[in-house]
């Protein structure tokens, strides 16, 4: 891992010299992000931690006297035991290991309605020797039950500032408290004392701490107790028998691992229990009465009701789905139309020629291909932002867990899977609402199997052209394709969670907090929509653009006609009618496409797709469809010389498919080929945008390659079975 700081792009860069490094830690749902936004204002940037799918927000915080500090928002965690990527990051950022800069001070959010629970994390930070300042959040919600900041500070032995991010109350006091903490001497505060047996183990393991982990290195001077905290952390997180950590990817030096394994005595839960004993003794006297939760109880009475709750759930999810599916389409069409119009204008100015075609079809077409995703991304995150903020998203997980769990998916995977029916790109981005990386990646791996809206034109064309029978039969086949996609996605999740090592479920409790209902904050939601969209454009969009230009070139070059081809231009000039001229030019386009690199690729893969019932023309269509599945239709339109503007309902194209004959005079496309083709499209990952966004979300090439590989193999095998099996059974 490289040096961590907040500036610039997605990867860490060196911290600005002399700038104090601050981190903001806290449990999920304690208003941490709202506080972060209030403290850093417009300077915040969201990026990824290197190598993993955890988001890092960074911003600048101005201290009294105008001094600027870097503030980093840590993932919300209940403790720092490094059982997940999130907790590992929190630990690294708090301690200054793993390449992260050592923080000069730590702001810990304490929920005024849940003081004891949120203070557990604070105790861990204090033991590690961090200079802690407590920001007491949710004070307005706690009302009279909020503890007095002064009394809390005396008990916790660190400064406590009550803040209300919405009204900005207490922010200046918090800045001043941070400023004081920065000048204070470091000390590790332990509110409990290990028993002699644990003490001895801590001493033995702290001997084995690598130099870079020692407080003398990290803090510049040895801090009594700070090294003990890291030793205790190692003792709690490393499996005593095997030496393996609770999270496979946990970075632990080998010497430390060995020292832990060498400690013979079985360790108990002493540290956890001791912290809680202290909290249960000290905190309750400060909290006069429990916070008022009547409103949340009343809402939950309806929303989590056995029958009524499902009704509301279905209504909310329907609105979400409809908005992605229907409401986004005018905006998508408008963007599409705008780019087509721009292209036409530019073509008018530049005329014909390779450069003009490159600009119009390659660049402008490619930018358009990126921008069409924006309406759905914005809408989905508008919904997700509101649902998450108000607390309903956690309830969705609660309601859906029984179903999702049977496939080893997280309850929160429901919304991304549902969004997958509209488009896999925003759906993959929506996996962010799950805390654990394993859950996110598993969901990302199956979301592209859902029948997205780009598959519809392909199905409509194939069903319309090749499946005989009434509208009822055709409609039923469409429904069957949807069911097929849901079933395969769920089965794929089940199989992968049992076979693919990084996706195997850890035996961690599936405990989701159901936070009290709160009013969503429009500002925060808009901020997130903006952040997600700009990140998509910056990181996935550039890849999609590059790929679409490459695909354009693949289907465009070489420009010369193959030997022996008739001179279509000359013939078109002498064409008797306008229709004849158009069909001659369409034929020229078809010959050119067949001769292009993409066309040759279609020919080249023919032996591989022949067993599925596909000829090289379908092969060209499959190559073209990599830009987006619906491009299959227009590519076939060109191949069959009915024009590139053919759509899925175009009768000439349907007729051309029905009439197509192979070299032996047989029909190229039978109903069985149609079913095989639809099955292939249902299962193959024919979508560079999905791959680009998975690469961006997982920060690796491995996962998109795995996704592409397994889906292609699955598609090939299933189509093979469908086609060859169908033939054996006597279908054609």
């Amino acid at each position, binding site marked *: 891992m490289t040096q961590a700081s907040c500036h610039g792009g997605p990867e860490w860069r060196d911290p600005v010299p002399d700038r104090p490094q601050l981190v903001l830690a806290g449990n999920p749902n304690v208003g941490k992000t709202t506080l972060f936004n209030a403290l850093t204002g417009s300077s915040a940037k969201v990026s990824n931690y290197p190598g993993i799918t955890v988001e890092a927000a960074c911003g600048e915080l101005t201290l009294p006297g105008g001094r600027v500090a870097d503030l980093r928002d840590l993932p919300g965690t209940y403790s720092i035991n490094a*059982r997940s990527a999130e907790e590992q990051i929190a630990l690294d950022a708090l301690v200054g290991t793993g390449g992260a800069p050592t923080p000069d001070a730590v702001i810990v959010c304490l929920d005024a309605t*849940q003081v004891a629970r949120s203070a557990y994390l604070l105790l861990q930070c204090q033991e590690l020797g961090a200079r802690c300042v407590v920001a007491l959040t949710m004070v307005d919600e706690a009302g009279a039950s909020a503890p007095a900041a002064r009394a809390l500070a005396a008990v916790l032995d660190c400064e406590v500032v009550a803040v209300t991010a919405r009204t900005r109350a207490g922010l200046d006091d918090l800045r001043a408290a941070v400023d004081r903490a920065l000048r204070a001497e470091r000390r590790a505060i332990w509110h409990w004392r290990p028993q002699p047996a644990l003490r001895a183990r801590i001493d033995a393991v702290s001997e084995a701490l690598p130099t870079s982990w020692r407080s003398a290195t990290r803090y510049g001077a040895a801090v009594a107790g700070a090294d003990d905290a890291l030793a205790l952390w190692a003792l709690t997180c490393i499996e005593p028998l095997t030496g393996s950590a609770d999270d496979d990817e946990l970075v632990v030096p080998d010497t430390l691992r060995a020292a832990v394994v060498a400690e013979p005595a079985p360790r108990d839960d002493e540290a956890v*229990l001791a912290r809680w004993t202290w909290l249960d003794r000290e905190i309750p006297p400060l909290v006069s009465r*429990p916070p008022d939760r009547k409103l949340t109880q009343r809402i939950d009475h309806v929303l*989590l009701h056995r029958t009524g709750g499902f009704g509301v759930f279905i209504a909310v999810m329907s609105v979400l789905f409809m908005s992605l599916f229907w409401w986004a389409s005018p905006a998508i069409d408008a963007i599409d139309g705008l780019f087509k119009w721009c292209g036409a204008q530019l073509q008018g100015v530049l005329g014909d020629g390779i450069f003009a075609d490159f600009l119009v079809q390659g660049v402008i077409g490619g930018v358009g291909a990126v921008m069409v995703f924006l309406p759905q991304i914005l809408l989905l995150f508008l919904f997700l932002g509101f649902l998450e903020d108000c607390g309903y998203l*956690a309830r969705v997980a609660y309601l859906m867990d029984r179903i999702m769990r049977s496939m080893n998916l997280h309850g929160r995977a429901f919304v991304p899977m549902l969004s997958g029916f509209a488009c896999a790109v925003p759906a993959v981005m929506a996996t962010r609402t799950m805390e654990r990386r394993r859950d996110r990646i598993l969901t990302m791996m199956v979301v592209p199997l859902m029948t997205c809206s780009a598959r519809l034109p392909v199905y409509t064309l194939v069903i319309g052209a090749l499946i005989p029978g009434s509208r009822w039969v055709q409609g039923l086949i469409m429904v069957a394709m949807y069911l097929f996609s849901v079933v395969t996605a769920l089965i794929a999740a089940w199989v992968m969670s049992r076979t693919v090592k990084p996706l195997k479920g850890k035996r*961690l*409790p599936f405990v989701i*907090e159901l936070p009290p209902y709160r009013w969503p904050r429009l500002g925060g939601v808009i901020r997130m929509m903006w952040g997600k969209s700009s990140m998509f454009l910056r990181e996935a969009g550039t890849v999609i653009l590059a790929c679409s230009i490459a695909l354009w070139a693949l289907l465009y070059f070489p420009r010369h006609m193959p030997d022996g081809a008739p001179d279509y231009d000359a013939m078109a000039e002498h064409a008797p009618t306008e229709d004849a001229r158009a069909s001659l030019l369409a034929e020229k386009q078809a010959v050119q496409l067949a001769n292009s690199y993409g066309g040759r690729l279609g020919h080249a893969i023919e032996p591989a797709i022949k067993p599925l019932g596909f000829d090289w023309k379908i092969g060209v269509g499959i190559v073209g469809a990599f830009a987006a599945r619906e491009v299959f239709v227009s590519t076939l339109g060109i191949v069959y010389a009915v024009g590139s503007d053919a759509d899925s309902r175009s009768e000439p194209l349907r007729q051309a498919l029905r009439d197509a004959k192979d070299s032996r005079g047989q029909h190229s496309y039978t109903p069985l080929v149609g079913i095989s083709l639809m099955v292939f499209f249902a299962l193959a990952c024919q979508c560079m945008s999905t791959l680009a966004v998975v690469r961006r979300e997982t920060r690796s090439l491995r996962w998109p390659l795995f996704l592409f590989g397994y889906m292609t193999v699955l598609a090939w095998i299933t189509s093979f079975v469908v086609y060859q099996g169908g033939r054996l059974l006597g279908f054609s």
Partner: protein
Amino acid sequence: MASLAETPLGRIVAVAAVEGPRAFRRRLLEMGLVPGTSVRIVTVAPLGDPLRIEVRGGQWSIRRAEAAQIQVAPR
């Protein structure tokens, strides 16, 4: 001793012990489910699982199989 999963809806009981694999147990303990803590099942999800429990003034969704690892005693 009974487990939390067998506790009738709404009855307040005290955590006696948390069982199960190390990482699992420690996670629940760190969330505050330490012995002596009061806990009750508020509702069961419409499909019979998970359970909605109340601990220390906060509410959590926990699977039945996990609740079965939490031994409880009458309060």
